[in-house]
């Protein structure tokens, strides 16, 4: 065991952290955000009333729905193939409603209300999206005790703020917020995955039978 003795609470939270340790979830969610950002920018670039607007709107619904299902399966497959033989398998069971989830829902509601109050010269949508992404990432960082998630949360909030200030009140702000946050998450996930593989080199899979 480590020389610095972890608290019991830390041990209870470790399996939750383990899910995010390898960076695969960041890579998947980052790719989804980047795809959403690109779709929004393509949508913003097409003239109103064109067929492409309708296609873009459908894609905006399809990307989060199909993408999350697809990436969930993909992440599971990759974990089964590359992660579990190296550092073990955890069965998380059914996801239970947590206090963190309620904080995120509460934050989203607060942002929606703030959107009506903030001055018109700001792109409230980008500001709200950046803050919401920041809130979700900060909640995850707190729950998983992962410092890089705090950094990602700050970056997402700053991207939202920058987009709100400089890109004006239109869809380009949202596109930049999602696209840039997605790109940063892909970079962060890639670094985490590289670090994970370096720390846990491949070994012959012999199983874990005691």
């Amino acid at each position, binding site marked *: *065991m480590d020389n610095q003795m972890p608290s*019991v609470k830390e041990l*209870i939270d470790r399996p939750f952290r383990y899910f995010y340790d390898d960076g695969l979830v960041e890579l998947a969610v980052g790719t989804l955000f980047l795809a959403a950002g690109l779709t929004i920018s393509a949508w913003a670039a097409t003239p109103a009333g064109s067929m492409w607007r309708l296609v873009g709107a459908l894609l905006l619904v399809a990307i989060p729905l199909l993408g999350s299902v697809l990436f969930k399966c993909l992440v599971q497959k990759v974990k089964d193939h590359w992660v579990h033989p190296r550092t073990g398998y955890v069965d998380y069971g059914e996801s239970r409603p947590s206090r963190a989830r309620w904080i995120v829902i509460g934050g989203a509601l607060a942002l929606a209300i703030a959107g009506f109050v903030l001055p018109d010269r700001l792109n409230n949508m980008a500001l709200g999206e950046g803050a919401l992404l920041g809130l979700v990432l900060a909640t995850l960082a707190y729950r998983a005790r992962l410092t890089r998630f705090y950094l990602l949360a700050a970056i997402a909030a700053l991207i939202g703020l920058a987009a709100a200030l400089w890109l004006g009140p239109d869809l380009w702000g949202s596109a930049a917020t999602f696209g840039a946050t997605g790109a940063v998450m892909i970079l962060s996930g890639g670094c985490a995955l590289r670090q994970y593989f370096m720390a846990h080199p491949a070994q012959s899979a012999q199983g874990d*039978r*005691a």
Partner: protein
Amino acid sequence: MSEPIKSLVEADRIVHEPARLAILALLHSIRGADFLYLQEETGLTKGNLSSHLSRLEDAGYVEIEKTFKGKIPRTLCRITADGRLAFETHCQALKGVIEGES
């Protein structure tokens, strides 16, 4: 003897041992984990971990299921309701002792 001290003296020795307490803490918030994961997290040797798991299994605090993932054997460990209760009771007793000190 004060109530917290009494509860510590009468502590469940199966749970009180640091390695077994760590195993139960790791299994507490999940449905289960395999032997390799517990070994990685606790840093125990295979033999040591196996012996602690056997003690926990004998006490009815952990269930051990030996399965296969493809052709690779997987030993899946799950905390039981009794194990969860024993762990939570023990943590409460320790908390009582620590808070009683101040």
